[in-house]
């Protein structure tokens, strides 16, 4: 039953992806800035004949609706076109970059949960203690601090001053890693490459912390306030009246209920982890989707933008679906 529902939801992502792509299609063409002009501006003087030829090649000479039709027709077959600038298939470009972005997002998610869950629990259990005040104050910092700033500080300390962790990239340049999935940590495990595993994990640490810090701050706060509520509930009293140990009461009865609202918030944050990391990718020289999309926007590289946006929409919907599925496991009153 659940599987059928999940498949239904997956199928429903297809119209969502196209809807988003169509919106982006029009927005990009309605904003000023012509891709061919921008390309020419970089190349210097070119004849008008050359410009016309490029326009024709990119279908930019045709009416807008025809362009849209051509784009949708190809996209349905899985062909997202060629990047104007990079001159390579959009699908290939995305396939190269997406694993890096997802790997970083997962790293950041892991780091933020490892931090925020214990902190959220402890500061609720010891409400108004020194620990509670300190962590809530620092979580406020975590929310309000710009990501690139934290990234630079971390690089200055851990890479430049102490030399513990690498400055940038996904893996040491001198290491050879056979690519299977494009996820370096996973590939190192699959090929049994210990050195590559260590190197790719070390490269992940600082960007994950930088990207995960604001997420950790938000999740810790939400978990704390939901824990405060569940700790006051009658069912927690019932558990105590049965003779349960306080930690059992906290970690089983209170936490299991407090996770329900927290999971929703984590789900929203996953979207930010996937789509809001352009600056952090730039600071850490992380070869992910974000930087490529920013460049594509500046260059009016329409096919690349449209393709990337569709992928963003897809990952977003998948993340939401994952949250909804988890929600049904956490909350017996809800089914998909």
């Amino acid at each position: 039953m659940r599987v059928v529902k999940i498949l239904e939801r997956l199928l429903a992502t297809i119209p969502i992806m196209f809807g988003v792509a169509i919106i982006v299609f029009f927005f990009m063409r309605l904003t000023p800035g012509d891709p061919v002009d921008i390309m020419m501006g970089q190349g210097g003087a070119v004849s008008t004949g050359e410009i016309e030829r490029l326009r024709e090649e990119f279908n930019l000479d045709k009416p807008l609706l025809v362009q849209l039709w051509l784009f949708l027709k190809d996209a349905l077959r899985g062909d997202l076109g060629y990047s104007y600038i990079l001159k390579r298939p959009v699908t290939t470009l995305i396939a190269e970059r997406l694993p890096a972005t997802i790997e970083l997002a997962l790293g950041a998610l892991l780091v933020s949960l490892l931090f925020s869950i214990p902190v959220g629990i402890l500061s609720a259990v010891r409400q108004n203690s020194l620990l509670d005040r300190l962590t809530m104050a620092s979580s406020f910092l975590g929310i309000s601090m710009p990501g690139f700033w934290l990234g630079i500080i971390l690089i200055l300390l851990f890479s430049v001053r102490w030399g513990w962790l690498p400055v940038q990239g996904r893996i040491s340049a001198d290491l050879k890693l056979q690519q299977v999935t494009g996820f370096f940590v996973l590939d190192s495990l699959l090929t049994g490459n210990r050195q590559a595993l260590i190197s790719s994990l070390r490269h992940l640490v600082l960007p994950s912390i930088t990207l995960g810090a604001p997420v950790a701050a938000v999740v810790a706060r939400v978990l704390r306030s939901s824990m405060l509520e569940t700790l006051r509930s009658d069912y927690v009293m019932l558990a105590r009246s049965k003779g349960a140990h306080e930690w059992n009461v906290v970690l089983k009865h209170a936490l299991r209920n407090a996770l329900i609202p927290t999971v929703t918030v984590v789900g929203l944050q996953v979207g930010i982890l996937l789509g809001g990391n352009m600056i952090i990718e730039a600071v850490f020289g992380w070869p992910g989707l974000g930087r490529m999309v920013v460049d594509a926007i500046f260059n009016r590289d329409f096919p690349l933008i449209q393709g990337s946006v569709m992928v963003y929409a897809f990952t977003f919907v998948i993340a939401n679906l994952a949250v909804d599925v988890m929600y049904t496991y956490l909350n017996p009153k809800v089914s998909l």
Partner: protein
Amino acid sequence: MSGTELLEIRQLTTVFPTRRGEVRAVDGVNLRLKPGQLLGLVGESGCGKSTVLLSILRLIRQPGQIVQGEILFRGRDLRKQSGKAMRAIRGKDIAMIFQDPLSTLNPVFVVGEQIREALRIHHIVSGPRWPWPLDIAVRQNEKKRVLKIMEDVGIPSPMDRYAAYPHQFSGGMQQRALIAMALICGPSILLADEPTTALDVTIQAQIMDLMRQINQSHGTAIILVTHDLGLAAEFCDTIAVMYAGRIVEQGSVDQIVTDPQHPYTEGLLACRPRIQQREQRVQPIPGNVPDLAALPVGCAFAPRCKYARELCAQVSIPMFSVEDGRFSRCLRHTDFRIEPHLGWDEIVRL
């Protein structure tokens, strides 16, 4: 004398600091409970009944605290027990049925497992205690006991209901599940906080029957907390009437019902709906429940009392022993004189 008591509460005082000042939710309460006894604790909403029960289990929420008194369970003062010793008593020797079944059941766990929890905590079923999932043998035996008790408390088809969630139970079934949870370890005292308030009349009668059966077959002593004096009179042998954190009158059911000593008890009896005398209108007690953060020196009921005299509001009124095992905190039926040298708040009975 006190050797025969299962539970004896002496001068129990529990306070909650609030923004408006210190709320004395329980103020100098004395109670005695013998094995198998049925004691009713009756009073209006907010008079501190639940707080008495939670104090017994030492489950008062911070920053509330027990500031005075002794709670002797089998002669041991529960206030002096360690956290570990208290946990060993909770659920095993003294179990509680809470007021509101729906909010008391944990919504995310199946009912059967919630009933099994106390068995697991107190290692009631013997067997090798291996970590999950190797503890199958013990778990199976525990489950059998849970199914048995579910049947005993009248939950139909326990096999199916074991894995159901609380929201899939009706109110009556939720209450039965809570009773099963309280009974699973065979406690000697059951603290029942308004076990039937949330239920309709027929279910209420069934639940009270069930509690009586438990009392008779297992000899479980029960403290029944209710705002319904009629219900307490039907069910209990002894009744303590509570007003504004204090016990104002205590005695056997017959004594309380036929010859109330305290005007508040009289008021409660008058506002009990009587089916036989349909003509007679229910008479609510005039006035409001007092503010527990600003209690008067004297009788807290004085402002609502038609017999009140000047003195009632001025002196703190002690429990008078009316006859054996019968107490009242009222000057009305008592001859007394004021001993000037003892001060205003010392009253000596003649």
